[in-house]
């Protein structure tokens, strides 16, 4: 029960910080949604990192390493450490400047203005919300599951989800972006320390050290794939380098960029970002592989770290580390809830007349009501829908947002890009997501057994569509590859075939 008490204390601290932020807030949307564009220095770095990291960085990474081995680090962590800071450097800084100059608070507001078109913004809004909401729901599910696991079953899953949803709602409802980023500072420090502390504690409990276990894994032909990438195809590995393009296109990441106090705060963020990813992922992946020896035969490998900590760490420390995991869940979830609320308030409510009728403070009231509404709905959906559906939806969302990155790049750097090019790319992404979902569903009965080659889905098309254990692929590449390249091609060709934006707009965005 001690871990539950420690996590309980942590949750109270979070709620208090959010409430204190409430007293500092003003009744306008820029303050509520973007903390008055005042997030600076270390707070900005820790917050944007918390926005991007979910429980997957701790539990999912170790679970995947338990199943697939060390390749997971290169597949997801080091590729993200390369791509995400680059996108923040090239795209995030420009978004910040345009937000500051023209008052944009969401990506949709920027797209509408940049391409002189309401409808393109609305189409992108719908696609973004469809891709973001499952992510928000699965965060609540993840929080509930972690609380249930940490407590050894004393806290029921429904209660865990309820506690996470309540704390997140309170935090965002009262504090808005300010409460969220203040809480993020505390949360990110906790989960950044998680990996190193867990590694040290488990190392201390193993008298022979790690080397013996890793050598044993490497020397056994049945387990040697865990310390190499022999079961990972190079196409699959390369495909994954496109996935982190999604990061900057997630609405909550873009909003964090808008919230920066000045552009120079991006400097340290982009330099330290790869190291922060390493600080979390490297110990978790390593411990996941080690877990195959220390706790073999797990039915749910995502729980491997919790098993290792329960077996090797003092209970109070297990509680603090559990709070670190919950931090990762809630850090991103609060930003997702805030982003969905911001988008509905700014891109729908205010855009279609709400601001004129109810003013700035009315918009903030709408946002707060919406926050309660969306988390209540998310909570009940989380309780009544299988997690596998949302896991799949979230995987697709990463591909979808990655394939929207060319639209953002064109908007920022290519004068000649047009709303029709953006519309063509967006519709392509939506069609690909629907198509991939369908192919994934119809190929569920063709999943190959571990170690076997992929199954051909439509023999008439040869290797065009294949099914691996987890994914439908296109010539062995993940769907994100044709999605991103199709999006680039459509953006270019359709833009060149359609009239350029007006001169006033070009001058406004490319002075």
């Amino acid at each position, binding site marked *: 029960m001690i871990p539950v008490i420690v996590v309980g204390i942590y949750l109270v601290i979070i709620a208090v910080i959010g409430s204190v932020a409430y007293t500092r807030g003003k009744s306008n949307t820029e303050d509520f949604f973007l903390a008055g564009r005042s997030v600076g220095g270390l707070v900005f770095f820790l917050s944007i990192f918390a926005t991007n990291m979910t429980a997957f960085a701790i539990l999912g990474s170790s679970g995947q390493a338990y199943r697939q081995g060390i390749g997971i680090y290169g597949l997801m962590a080091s590729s993200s*450490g390369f791509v995400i800071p680059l996108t923040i450097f090239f795209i995030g800084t420009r978004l910040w*400047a345009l937000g500051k100059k023209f008052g944009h608070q969401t990506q949709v507001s920027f797209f509408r203005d940049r391409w002189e078109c309401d409808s393109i913004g609305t189409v992108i809004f719908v696609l973004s919300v469809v891709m973001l909401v499952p992510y928000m729901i699965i965060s609540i599910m993840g929080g509930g599951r972690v609380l249930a696991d940490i407590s050894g079953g004393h806290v029921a899953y429904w209660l865990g989800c309820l506690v996470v949803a309540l704390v997140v709602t309170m935090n965002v409802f009262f504090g808005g972006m300010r409460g969220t980023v203040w809480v993020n500072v505390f949360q990110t420090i906790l989960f950044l320390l998680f990996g190193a502390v867990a590694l040290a504690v488990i190392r201390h409990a193993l008298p022979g050290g790690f080397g013996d276990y890793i*050598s044993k894994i490497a020397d056994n032909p049945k387990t040697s794939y865990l310390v190499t990438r*022999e079961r990972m195809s*190079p196409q699959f590995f390369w495909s994954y380098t496109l996935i982190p393009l999604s990061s900057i296109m997630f609405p909550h990441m873009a909003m964090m960029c808008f919230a920066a106090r000045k552009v120079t705060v991006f400097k340290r963020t982009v*330099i330290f970002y790869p190291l922060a990813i390493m600080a979390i992922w490297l110990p978790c992946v390593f411990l996941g592989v080690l877990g195959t020896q220390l706790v073999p035969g797990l039915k749910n490998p995502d729980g491997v770290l919790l098993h290792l900590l329960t077996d090797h760490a003092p209970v109070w420390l297990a509680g603090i580390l559990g709070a670190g995991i919950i931090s990762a869940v809630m850090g991103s979830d609060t930003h997702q809830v805030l982003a969905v609320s911001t988008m509905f308030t700014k891109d729908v409510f205010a855009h279609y007349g709400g601001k004129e009728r109810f003013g700035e403070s009315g918009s903030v009231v709408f946002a707060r009501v919406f926050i309660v509404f969306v988390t209540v709905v998310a909570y009940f959906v989380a309780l009544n829908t299988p997690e596998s559906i949302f896991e799949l939806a979230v995987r697709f969302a990463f591909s979808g947002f990655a394939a929207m990155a060319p639209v953002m790049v064109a908007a920022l750097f290519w004068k000649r890009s047009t709303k029709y090019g953006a519309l063509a790319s967006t519709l392509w992404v939506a069609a690909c997501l629907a198509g991939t979902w369908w192919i994934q569903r119809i190929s569920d009965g063709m999943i190959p057994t571990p170690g076997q080659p992929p199954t051909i889905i439509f023999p008439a098309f040869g290797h065009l569509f294949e099914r691996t254990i987890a994914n439908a692929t296109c010539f062995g590449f993940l769907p994100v590859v044709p999605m991103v390249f199709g999006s680039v091609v459509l953006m270019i060709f359709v833009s060149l075939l359609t009239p350029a934006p007006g001169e006033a707009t070009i001058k406004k965005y490319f002075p």
Partner: protein
Amino acid sequence: MKKFLLFLLIAVVYLLHQDFWNWRVSHPLVFGFLPIGLAYQAGYSILASIMMAILVRTAWPKHLENVEGGEPK
């Protein structure tokens, strides 16, 4: 020339991520316990950080530092 060199730097660092030569080997164990494939990718994370430091130093969008605020939308 500077732009070209920076583009080249990004391209080379990107290519270094695809370490096909480590695909099927686990040894040597770096520090006695880290499989070489994992140690390489950890080193790659440090390289990515160094690359970003170079970009910040040499290609920072200084013109954005003077952007003035406008009306909220």
